[in-house]
């Protein structure tokens, strides 16, 4: 549903941020994007709904070219982005008003806006904060408001750019759970992160370095790829552990590496067999 064709982008100061990117995202897919600081992940995400337009090549969203100004509104209806810092995403004085911002821009009638706001509030469990100022909420709740604000536009594809990096681990987990549920409901997900542990459930992972895609594939292949460290990324410790065990002739299946408890169970099972 989204296609990058030979996309290159340099920032106005000359920094090359994307170099000849080719990739596609299918409907309903859950894609993880990783890469160290400055590798071009955010720049890529801004291309997904035409906030930035490629200088070379083109980005197509469901057949619409992001370079075509008349299509932009239509593209933004399809692809919504949740950004890193919840505070600089708030435009409303109350949560309710903030959620209405997107639908209002789509020129929907008041009744429909109310319906969407109520639905987004229910979906994120924010009903009791309806009249609160988004700024009075905690970081995790704030990120929920930001997500709800995007959900109110009812996009098919949701992009998350390092949404957990400013949250404590617990709120981070809640947000991640929410992302998984949205994927189960059929939304296309693009999840950008530094934390490789968060990508266990992805369908496909794209690794970026200096504006290029350097590695791409299923999580079980990418997360255990020996070149990750050289790209400045730390593989999840359980997966690394599983790799070491494999070198010693002990095979822990991929599904069991998602959390310590299932990993431990598997190890115990293997021990008992021996």
């Amino acid at each position, binding site marked *: 549903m989204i296609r990058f064709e030979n996309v290159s982008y340099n920032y106005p100061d000359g920094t090359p941020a994307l170099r000849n990117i080719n990739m596609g995202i299918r409907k309903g897919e859950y894609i993880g994007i990783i890469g160290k600081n400055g590798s071009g992940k955010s720049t890529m995400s801004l291309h997904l709904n035409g906030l930035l337009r490629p200088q070379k090549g083109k980005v197509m969203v469901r057949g619409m070219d992001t370079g075509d100004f008349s299509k932009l509104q239509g593209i933004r209806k399809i692809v919504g*982005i949740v*950004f890193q810092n919840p505070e600089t*995403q708030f435009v409303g004085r*109350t949560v309710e008003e903030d959620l209405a911002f997107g639908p209002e821009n789509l020129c929907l009638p008041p009744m429909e806006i109310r319906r969407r706001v109520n639905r987004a509030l229910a979906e994120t469990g924010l009903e009791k904060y309806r009249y609160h*100022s988004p700024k*009075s909420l905690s970081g995790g709740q704030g990120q929920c408001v930001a997500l709800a604000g*995007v959900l109110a*536009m009812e996009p098919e594809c949701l992009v998350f750019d390092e949404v957990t990096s400013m949250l404590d681990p617990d709120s981070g987990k809640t947000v991640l759970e929410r992302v998984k549920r949205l994927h189960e409901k059929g939304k296309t997900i693009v999840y950008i992160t530094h934390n490789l542990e968060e990508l266990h459930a992805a369908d496909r992972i794209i690794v970026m370095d200096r504006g290029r895609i350097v590695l791409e594939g299923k999580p079980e292949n990418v997360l255990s790829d020996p070149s990750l460290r050289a790209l400045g990324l730390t593989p999840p410790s359980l997966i690394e552990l599983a790799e070491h065990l494999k070198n010693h002739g002990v095979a822990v299946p991929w599904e069991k590496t998602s959390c310590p408890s299932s990993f431990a169970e598997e190890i115990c099972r293997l021990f008992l067999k021996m």
Partner: protein
Amino acid sequence: MQEPVFSYVPGTSFLHTLDPRTKLAAVMLLGILVFRTESFFGIGVIFALFIALASFTGLPTGIFFRAVRPMLLFIIFIFLAQLFFTEGKVLASFWILQPSIEGLQNGLRLSARFILLLLFAALMTASTDPSAITCGIERILRPLPLRWLGVNSYELATMMNISIAFLPLLFERVERTKAAQASRGMYFGRNPFHSVPALVIPLIRGIVRDAEELALAMESRGYQGTRRTSMHELLMQKRDWASLFALVFFAALLLRF
């Protein structure tokens, strides 16, 4: 958290259900009325009207008087200036100050007017969702040829909303920058010529970055600065016209006497 002075209290009273445009017009009308009424009797009647309207909201009347507090110093200043600097029959004499009866009257009248104005404004803000107020203003401004100023009414309304939402972020940034600089050994208050640039430059850098992020987030959610709708349905109903008519009638009656 500090309680804001002009804050909205959600509710379902008669005043709550009026169209924001009705209330905006009413506040303007009452403002004119307040400043056209000379007699203390008239001012008393307007005050009675305020009490009556305030009781309609079902909110404790005290919360409206909170709106007066931040302006109290200004009102006292006006009162004293009138009291001492109005020519007239001298009441008493303190040193070079000679309060006059006319001054006392003028002072009372003027401060009563300001207080009433604040009270009515507080009445409106307490019973109207702030975004409905901006929406109402937007609708009132829409027919005006704002294009000549290089903006349209939608942009203006969004600007009003954003600046109010963005302001706390700004203050927070000032505090954060101050703390960051202090932890690097800056002293504030000693030599302002030294500390101000050290504070202002990172501050502006931070604000510009915040503003850029905000602009991206807004654009991503489809903001184009052109026509947009509002969650608030604005419909002038019978009760709006009736209220306005009653108010005009009241004003005319009061100005006759």
